[in-house]
């Protein structure tokens, strides 16, 4: 190394120690200055009694009884100052111009998460995802080509070919898809309420959508017509998000956001993509000597037998697309499955090409019965027929 480089290295690498007590005192001072600047900003907002009145859901219902309509109808609400009316179609239309979504949310354990979504403006599909769950210690980056799951606490990277982070609901068409695919088929209801956002003091439209298995409250900016916050009381199966606290649209994507660099010392695990996993002979059961119908019923019965007995390892061997932790947290946590009530007749769905769906009714410890639609995938490996479960093909519903 050249002498000059030695000096450079010395300057760069020399350590400095600081007094922890003073560190904290200075930081407190800095935060105080920050809070003061924030309070000056928010002091400009006038308090509004409207929000206080509207806080109670019962009051909300009473206040908006006149605008209670089902989803198929055009829903509008007139402003008391006779501003232009709001209609859901405006939000659906405005969302078609979204190319990026950046949001901060909380999961059902109240842990913070942050996500960036790159949206295909033509289709509304989620092209790329960036999901940071700091309290869980996981960063997930998913593109059509590759998906990385970086477990920061373990310094481990799982790599899956293709887009492993997916959502049945298109983020770029969120309201449209929820209304078309969830609320309308279940004969749900929507309401529109006007109020003032308690965080910003600004006027917002609240879109409240409810069906037997889903309940959402979306705050719509009356200027942009776009949702700025969303709360969920009941969510879709597998949905990790309980509330979306801040949403920002069409922000420029940070450079290299979806180009994940594997840390040099990280453990790297390459996992099989979905279609490889479900064709892995180590998973599933043999269908030799059985009809497809018998094999389908057998694997579903075996799967639920394992889940009811909390043998999640064995359940995972039949449903390899969900790892043991996922089965534990999603299926095992459904207040405890206690009985497989029935296995229904199979049917096909045009968009699911790799398996057939079976309606399965399961009773839980609280007495409720849920109907799930499990996919059975048949494969012939080395001339031998076998099958495996490949997830759920459509939204589950509560029967009683």
């Amino acid at each position, binding site marked *: 190394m050249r002498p000059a480089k030695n000096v450079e290295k010395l300057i760069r690498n020399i350590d400095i120690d600081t007094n922890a007590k*003073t560190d904290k005192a*200075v930081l407190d*001072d800095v935060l105080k200055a920050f809070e003061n600047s924030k309070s000056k900003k928010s002091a400009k907002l006038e308090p509004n009694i409207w929000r206080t009145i509207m806080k109670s859901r019962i009051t909300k219902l009473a206040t908006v009884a006149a605008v209670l309509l089902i989803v198929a109808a055009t829903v509008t609400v007139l402003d008391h100052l006779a501003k232009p009316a709001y209609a859901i179609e405006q939000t659906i239309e405005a969302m078609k111009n979204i190319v990026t979504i950046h949001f901060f949310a909380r999961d059902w354990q109240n842990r913070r998460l942050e996500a960036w979504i790159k949206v295909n403006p033509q289709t509304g599909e989620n092209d790329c995802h960036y999901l940071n769950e700091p309290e869980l210690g996981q960063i997930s980056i998913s593109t059509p080509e590759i998906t990385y799951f970086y477990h920061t606490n373990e310094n481990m990277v799982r790599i899956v070919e293709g887009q492993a982070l997916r959502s049945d609901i298109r983020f770029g068409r969120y309201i449209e898809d929820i209304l078309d695919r969830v609320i309308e088929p279940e004969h749900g209801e929507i309401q529109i309420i006007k109020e003032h956002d308690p965080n910003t003091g600004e006027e917002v439209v609240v879109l409240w959508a409810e069906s037997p298995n889903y309940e959402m409250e979306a705050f719509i900016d009356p200027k942009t017509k776009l949702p700025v916050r969303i709360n969920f009381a009941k969510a879709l199966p597998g949905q990790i998000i309980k509330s979306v606290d801040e949403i920002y649209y069409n922000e420029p994507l940070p450079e290299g956001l979806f180009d994940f660099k594997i840390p040099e010392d990280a453990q790297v695990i390459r996992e099989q993509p979905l279609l490889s996993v479900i064709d892995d002979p180590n998973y599933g059961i043999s269908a030799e000597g059985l009809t497809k119908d018998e094999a389908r019923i057998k694997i579903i019965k075996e799967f639920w037998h394992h889940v009811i007995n909390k043998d999640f390892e064995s359940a995972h061997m039949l449903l390899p697309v969900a790892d043991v932790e996922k089965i534990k947290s999603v299926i095992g946590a459904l207040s405890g499955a206690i009985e497989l009530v029935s296995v229904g007749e199979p049917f096909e769905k045009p968009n699911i090409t790799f398996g057939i769906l079976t309606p399965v009714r399961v009773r839980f410890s609280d007495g409720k019965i849920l109907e799930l639609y499990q996919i059975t995938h048949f494969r012939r490996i080395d001339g031998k027929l076998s099958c495996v479960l490949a997830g759920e093909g459509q939204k589950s519903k509560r029967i009683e």
Partner: protein
Amino acid sequence: MIEDKLLIWKFKRGSNDALCRIYEKYKDNLLKLATALLNETTAAEDVVQDVFVSFARSADNLRLGGNLKSYLATCVANRARNWNHARRHQETTDPNEAESSVSNSKRPEQWIIYNERLKLLNDAISQLPYQQREAVSLHAQGGMKFKAIAKLQDVSINTVQSRYRYGLDKLRSILDSEAEL
């Protein structure tokens, strides 16, 4: 750099967590930079504290052209210049004036815990002409590009690179001679 962009983004939207992270991430480096530029512990601590307080107040108006590290280093360099200017002025006029250009904030105890190596290095850096000291400290410690330093010093990039080279050479000879003693 992505982390910084996200931190700035969150900070501008009022996140205390983001501000804490920025503080934790850069305070040590800025303190090193300030002590190198000022070679006076209390003044360096005041300058860095002032930079963070002022940064915290700037969330609404902050427009970052370059990277965050470089931005904060420039803030420290500007305040260090003001402090040096006030000190020089004080030496010729009012002895109380230098104090007025830096923070009035009170800290419970001394912030920097000096070690021998740091003291030795800062003593050596303090023997450089100020422009060379600034070029060396901002590039090697502050991570600033020569182009940004050239803008700050209002000279050409070549001049900054020369100042940096001369500064390093001189620093090496000072450190070598001290090692021989």
